[in-house]
């Protein structure tokens, strides 16, 4: 094992040897109702890293009235859970939650800390890392381990996902990374799993921030960069009425509406909902591009969409070459038909889906045979 030469370190940093650190931690976001899905997903890379390092996965559960959820972490793969259940933690404040994790990390010295890159996780993570004088890598999409040095490779896509950077923090521990929600699945639950649950206290007595109010957002108010389904309109939508139709489609899909720069400049949609280089980068599971030609400045903002559907009247539109599923036609008629078809399916129930798929598989086969 490499020894760190303390004389070369910044004196603001504690001089610690990597081999003093052990275990892979997952910081769990939890409420009285349970542990968040995004946090449970983090157990998947944590288990993989722990397997390669021959180490244990420890869940860190913070909150008030959350102790009973320690079991959930164990059933999904954690070997151990450290719980801090305190009325001081009934509301989340980044530097309070952050400080609790810092205090635990100073005591237990974890080798790796993984945090779900939810908005709170992205807020709290760098505070934890910095206060420990440790490195942190944001929004990882993958992890690997150099088994010889025990360095974790934290893999992330900077520069609008044009490249992948492999980042490591040699000689410094803990190695901290956040990973985006829905990149990893929740590990399957095993009801028979048992693990140790430890209880810790916090010495923090006051928060310097105070929550005054919280208003739950309506579906259509959810920020586009957090939406799983986006219906996005461009110049081809033609006006604000067209966007009302897109909103109707978004509503039945439980998604939100966004727009291209042209649609924003025309005043058809607010600039907070602009996708692209001068707008926001979005990462939905499904991006439905309606009347969007597919200019490079727009497409850079949707590189990380899992699937793109394009609806455009111009068969030559560049979007068709950058989408997964494209249909050529009048957007208004097609979107109206989509709304009607989705309503029909919703009414008919999941069984109707099989019939629909069968119809189009047969058609595809018929075309293939012809």
């Amino acid at each position, binding site marked *: 094992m490499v020894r760190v030469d303390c004389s070369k370190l910044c004196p*603001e940093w504690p001089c610690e040897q990597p081999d003093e650190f052990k275990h892979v931690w997952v910081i769990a976001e939890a409420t009285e109702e349970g542990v968040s899905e995004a946090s449970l997903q983090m157990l998947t890379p944590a288990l993989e890293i722990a397997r390669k390092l021959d180490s244990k996965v420890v869940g860190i559960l913070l909150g008030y009235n959350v102790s009973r959820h320690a079991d959930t972490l164990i059933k999904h793969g954690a070997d151990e859970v450290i719980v801090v259940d305190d009325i001081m933690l009934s509301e989340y404040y980044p*530097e309070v939650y952050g400080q609790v994790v810092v205090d635990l990390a100073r005591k237990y010295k974890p080798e790796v800390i993984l945090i779900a890159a939810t*908005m*709170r996780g*992205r*807020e709290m993570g*760098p505070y934890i*890392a*910095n206060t420990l004088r440790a*490195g*942190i890598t*944001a929004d990882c999409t993958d992890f690997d381990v150099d088994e010889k040095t025990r360095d974790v490779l934290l893999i992330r896509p*900077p*520069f*609008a996902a*044009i490249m*992948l950077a*492999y*980042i490591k923090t*040699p000689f410094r521990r803990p190695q901290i990374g956040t990973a985006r929600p829905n990149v990893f699945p929740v590990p399957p639950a095993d009801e028979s799993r048992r693990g140790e649950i430890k209880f810790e206290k916090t010495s923090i007595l006051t928060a*310097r*921030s*105070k929550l*005054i109010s*919280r*208003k*739950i957002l309506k579906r259509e108010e*959810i*920020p586009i960069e*957090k939406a*799983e*389904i986006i219906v996005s309109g461009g110049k081809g939508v033609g006006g604000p009425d067209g966007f009302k139709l897109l909103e109707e489609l978004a509503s039945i*899909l*439980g998604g939100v509406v966004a727009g291209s720069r042209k649609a924003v400049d025309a005043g058809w949609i607010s600039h907070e909902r602009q996708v692209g*280089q001068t707008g*926001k980068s979005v990462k939905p*599971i*499904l991006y439905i591009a309606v009347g969007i030609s597919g200019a490079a400045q727009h497409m*850079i903002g949707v*590189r990380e969409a899992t699937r*793109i*559907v394009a609806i455009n009247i111009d*068969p030559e539109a560049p979007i068709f070459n950058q*989408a*997964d*599923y*494209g249909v050529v*036609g*009048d957007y208004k008629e*097609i979107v*109206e*038909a*989509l709304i009607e*078809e989705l309503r029909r*399916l*919703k009414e008919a129930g*999941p069984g109707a889906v099989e019939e629909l*798929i069968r*119809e189009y*598989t047969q058609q595809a086969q018929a075309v293939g045979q012809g």
Partner: protein
Amino acid sequence: MRIVVGIKWVPNTQAVRFDPKTGTLIRTGVPAIVNPHDLPAAELALRLKDEYGGEVIVLTMAPPPAIQGLEHILGMGADRAVLLTDRAFAGADTLATSYVIAQGIRKIEEEWGPVDLAVFGQETIDSSTAHIGAQVASWLGWPYIYYVKKAWLQDGRLRVVRQLESAVEEFEVSTPAVVSVAMKALKARPVRLSYKLRAKLENPITVWTNKDLGLDPRCVGLKGSPTIVSKVTYLPEVPRKKIVYKPKDPRDAARWILAQLFSDEKTREALYKALWGGA
């Protein structure tokens, strides 16, 4: 109020190259701009100044060409600018960068008096880490809050409204504090010629090197960075299916799209969830 706005001078396009030897980015020759997500941060600071008086100081750690970025914010109405620049700062990761920025804020306090608020953009377009605000708060020991859309003073205390994935929250935060402003939350005011002229005449840009800050060279730049980039691969194109369908009629188009999405394992679950609350 004395408000510091931190900005980053970032490469404008994808024309960014990488030095495989040092594992750092080559910024020379690439056109640069103020990180677009920092403009709402400057706007928030200027609105607070408009409302309550005081001064706005724009701060960046960068090589000297970033002065153009500082001039942009001065043109919006900021009163002073500080450039933290030194060869020793090169190759810094977010921890080493935030250290220099935090020390810059400390020196601003020595020179011009206590700072009430440090404002940052939510993230940058080139690296999107969203680290700096929280790290600066950690170095300074100040409370902080991210994703702010609105800020005002109430009974002498700072109030903010911030946006999460599915909620809007209002907080009271004691000052001094650090806030980061949500992307696209505010439309930045245009640069005014009169402010630009004033900036030219009064020369409000202060340049501090590491000699001025007096930081241990082991704490800054590449040496002060716990993380290193060990490898980079390019992702020139995202693989797409590119299946294009010419429908018989709108209903056929709609049914074809849904048949694809329901038989695609990547989208099936999301659709089941949307229509029936689960599979």
